[in-house]
């Protein structure tokens, strides 16, 4: 089954052709960083305009790379939420028109589910149940995945997402946008024990996360006399160590509650070198398989959307041409009236 994936939930205009949910024949992603950099963050109106300008060419580019014709596609998968509404509508409108024109099924996909299925790309399907640690600029969640259509959030951030904390701290350190990868690079030259920033502890029995206090702590430190003398690389490394400690602690707590076949790391922050190293080290120590997608599938991409549509297709998740975009789409499959 060959699916065309379309992802425009934020600022990446992405298309992909994926066979049987795993084999990526082409994956195209046109990031818009250059357009947003001068504002220090994503400007939704600019993101939406770029999607209109780039998406049809990105579809054609994916087809050319895979040496396929549009008629060979068996269905169209598209992110229908959550995300920026102005960005989502461009992808959804385009996908619906392609499905209508080609008379192929349309699959609306939850962006967050897509990130979890990124771990399936170019490898064997993992055993169930597995634990997913989904960390990105907009989301931070600990998810139990029982099957492709049965997932439960065990913990989520109460304020900033991990990636958001990275970007905001990077700005405090004067790093260019996008700050997360820059902070990761800087931290590699610093001492993670130089400064003791706070680690959020969840309420008893929950796996919730919080990064707002950490970011504020870094801010106050940088404004202090000690902070003004501190080496930026040490601040970055110490901040990163705190984030990683919190995330690994939640994974450990989830495994303490019950057994899982594997742990999947996904979302843009999954590309972070310290987090990957820490999760691999924890997994090896505890005899758990760690699945971490390659960098191109950690960030927003359309291959993961096609993968999610493929694995969820048996749950009769075929959408009508009246499919809309929902910027606040719930993680729950049933939120859109589905099985």
């Amino acid at each position: 089954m060959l699916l065309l994936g379309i992802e425009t939930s934020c600022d990446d205009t992405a298309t992909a052709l994926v066979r049987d949910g795993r084999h990526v024949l082409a994956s195209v992603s046109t990031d818009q960083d250059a357009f947003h950099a001068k504002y220090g963050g994503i400007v939704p109106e600019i993101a939406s305009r770029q999607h209109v300008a780039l998406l049809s060419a990105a579809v054609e580019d994916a087809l050319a790379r895979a040496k396929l014709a549009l008629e060979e596609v068996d269905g169209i998968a598209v992110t229908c939420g959550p995300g920026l509404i102005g960005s989502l509508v461009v992808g959804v409108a385009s996908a619906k028109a392609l499905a209508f024109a080609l008379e192929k099924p349309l699959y609306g996909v939850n962006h967050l589910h897509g990130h979890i299925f990124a771990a399936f790309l170019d490898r064997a399907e993992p055993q169930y149940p597995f634990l997913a640690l989904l960390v990105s600029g907009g989301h931070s969640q600990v998810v139990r995945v029982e099957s492709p259509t049965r997932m439960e959030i065990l913990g989520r951030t109460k304020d900033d997402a991990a990636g958001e904390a990275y970007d905001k701290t990077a700005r405090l350190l004067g790093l260019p946008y996008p700050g997360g990868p820059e902070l990761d690079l800087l931290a590699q030259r610093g001492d993670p024990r130089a400064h003791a920033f706070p680690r959020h502890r969840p309420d008893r029995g929950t796996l919730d996360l919080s990064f707002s206090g950490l970011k504020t702590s870094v801010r106050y430190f940088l404004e202090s006399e000690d902070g003004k003398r501190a080496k930026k690389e040490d601040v970055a490394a110490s901040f990163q160590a705190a984030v990683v400690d919190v995330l690994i602690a939640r994974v450990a707590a989830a495994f303490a509650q019950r057994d899982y076949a594997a742990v999947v790391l996904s979302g843009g922050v999954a590309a972070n070198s310290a987090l990957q190293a820490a999760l691999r080290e924890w997994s090896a120590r505890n005899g758990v398989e760690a699945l971490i997608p390659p960098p191109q599938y950690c960030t927003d991409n359309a291959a993961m959307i096609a993968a999610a549509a493929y694995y969820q297709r048996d749950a009769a998740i075929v959408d009508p041409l009246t499919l809309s975009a929902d910027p606040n789409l719930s993680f729950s499959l049933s939120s859109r009236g589905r099985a």
Partner: protein
Amino acid sequence: MISLALDGALGAFSAALADDRGLLAQRREDGKRALELGLAAVASLMREARVGHEQITRIAVGIGPGGFTGLRIAISYAKALSLAWRIPLVPISSFDMLEGDAPSDRALAVVAGRPGIIYARFRDGRNETRAGGTTAEVLGRLALPEGRIPVFGAPEDALAVLAERGIDVECIPAPTYPAAVAALIARVREAPAQSHAIRPDYGELPAAKIPRLS
């Protein structure tokens, strides 16, 4: 030749089919529901006119200026249909749709943007001037000549400013089915070589909000 036209910039979402003899069918949906209902409108339009996609030789799309969301939805639909059916895509300005398929020599076409903002084009023979901004600014910049001027589209606040300035106008309201006009115009317009290159005319730069630390 059969042309299929879509527009989402001028308030509502509209779709129409036309052939060499004239209009075949037209549809209109609430602009706020363009994403949900737009394609169903296209499908019913084609059924009603008994036109299959293999008979369509040209797709036309309104490229604005006008409402940003409707504009993006219509252009996204049109680009995807053009790609899937391999049919040339013709961009049509909102100003052209307001003026109709048989424009006069002199015309002021006015599109309402977000509250208090208009986009306008004044044509006098071969000379053409465009402006966007507040109503008073735009009508000031266009330097309208003396004599009666046909005003197409004509939002109320624009007419009020024109009346204040003593300009003699003839009001022609916006068409109920802007896509119908686009379908007729498209019959005699060349399509660009690459439909990907078609860009919306937003009429103004984006209002960028600088993200702040919280």
